[in-house]
């Protein structure tokens, strides 16, 4: 990272009730190693909490890790909240257990980066670096 470059600030959230956070924590470490500042929310975040933290922390990226299949209903609730808080110019990214058949719906819900399990850590961090301007 160039010293004059601004540090990319990422919110990494665990939406919904699922407690499988191994992946989220692995990605958080990869982001920190890539030089990003990471705000990890911990488990069981509601859409309201994610939107509030994103706003308060003034992040560049809003990223979610979802493992238990409730990503679509969650993101449907999150989208209007992010928009209402004028966070729609931020980069929205989601990773985890995301079946291919859901990717289009997630894209339509505003998620530019979709990283299903099996994605490489460097692919995630390089995508974020490229997309955050």
């Amino acid at each position, binding site marked *: 990272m160039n010293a004059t470059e601004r540090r990319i600030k990422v919110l990494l959230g665990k939406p919904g009730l699922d407690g499988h956070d*191994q992946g989220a924590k*692995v990605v958080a470490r990869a982001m920190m190693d890539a030089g990003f500042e990471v705000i990890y929310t911990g488990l069981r975040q509601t859409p309201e909490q994610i939107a509030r933290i994103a706003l308060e922390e003034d992040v560049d990226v809003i990223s979610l890790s979802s493992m238990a299949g409730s990503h679509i209903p969650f993101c449907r609730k999150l989208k209007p909240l992010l928009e209402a808080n004028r966070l729609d110019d931020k980069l929205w990214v989601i990773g985890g257990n995301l079946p291919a058949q859901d990717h289009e719906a997630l894209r339509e819900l505003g998620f530019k980066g979709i990283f299903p399990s099996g994605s490489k850590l460097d692919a995630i961090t390089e995508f974020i670096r490229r997309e955050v301007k």
Partner: protein
Amino acid sequence: MNAPQKPAMKKVINESGIEVKPLYTAADVAASGGMEMLGEPGQYPFTRGIHREMYRKQPWTMRQYAGFGNPADTNQRFKYLIANGQTGLNVAFDLPTQIGLDSDDPLAEGEIGRVGMSIDTLRDFEIAFDGIDLKKITVSLTINGAAAILIAMYLAMAEKRGYDIKELRGTAQNDILKEFIGRGTWIFPVEPSIRLVGDTIEYCATHAPKYTPVSVCGYHIRESGATPAQEMAYAFSIAKAYADDAIKRGLPIDEFAGRLSYNFNIFGNIFEQVCKFRAGRGLWAKIMKEEYGAEKPGSMWLRMIAAGGGGGLTFEQPEVNIVRGAYYALISALSGTQTMALCSYDEAYTIPTEYSARISLRTMQLLIEEMGLTETVDPLAGSFYVETMTNEMRKKMEEIMAETDAQGGIVKMVAEGTIQAKVSSQAYQMQRKIESGEFPKVGVNCYRNEQEEDHPVEFHPYNEDDARVQIESLNRIRAERDNGKVTEALTRLRGDAAAGRNVMPALVDAVKAYASVGEMTKELVNVFGRYQEPIRF
């Protein structure tokens, strides 16, 4: 070139951190401690197995993890598995149930019946187990944060159906400490959570002495990034924390230790896993006998389910997971387990379909019927390699347990997030090793399908309508039940929790009055508070 690079005679270190030599001889066995801890099957220190005849007498119980949608959906799946030769049940609950929320709680929206079955009241248990003979088919409840409530519900359901609770067998996972490390279905803070586990142990010791109230899980700690040796060492430290709580209440060790059980993982190197189990059996027996003064052999037994293997399965080339599962089942059989279950090949994607669950069941049945795994006890015993590695794994586990004690003990380390940070750091390092190819994973970093698409997986469908049906049923029960009785039971529950009395009798009464999981949880939260997660990774 697609194959992993492997220079000849490179130093090999297993995941637990022990060097693996190209050849073992009798000298290695002697140097590692000899056969002192080996003994005979069915005799202390039980390294070779907790029973003399093991599978000759009775093969392992087959207990696939199952549950989804409404209790009626799950009841059908249970019957399907039993019709296909399954010999026990392992119940999956949805996330709202697991963290003590009713189906009509706003936080439950989108999660009802998704990763397991939805349970609100005793009525749901009556439906879920309808027509299943609970004497022939033992039931394991995969429940932790809300375990005390669901154990009460299970006992009440069985009693209502006329079973003698004193004779009732079954298991609850009820290992809350590992939920703070991985899996995350905690509700209350650490201390009251341990107290609730103690309440179930104490209650069952008197009222349901054949019921297993706790199954301590190394399993999820391993999934979160622990090595096989850490998996077992941390599980033992956790089991000791529960045992210490029970002893503080005045329970003699031999009155409850025989009803503690374990849940371990089976993915990874075959020999390292098998030696892990053999080593662990000897070590647990030694701990119970020497540290706790247990006298009954049953108190020293490492009774376990050696199962799953989810952490080893891959998204890539999912059908290859069928083969991985078969090797994992072999590990489990060679380990002398009491119970076996396999993650199905589609479980890296979603919960299993009937089809994939049946393949897992057949995999285990093959070992029993065709492969001779039930004929001879502990067939790998006497191998220079296996005996040396068993000794070395046991030493490794003892070292990890001593380190844990030196750092203030497992409860403190969990409460402060130290264990969480350690295993998640290891998970990160492992992920980097997989991505660099240093740790080979077929289909992931070598032998990838470059020419063709991966074979698609057929998904278990999620029925959005299940949530509506479940909420309607809950509303109906709330309207029909005697609400005066419910309020009375809940008031008593809160009083007992606040006064430090065992909450199980009050829970059993509340369950019988058809109080809901969410209502009972709220009363306990009012007294105990909620866990605040230390964000450490």
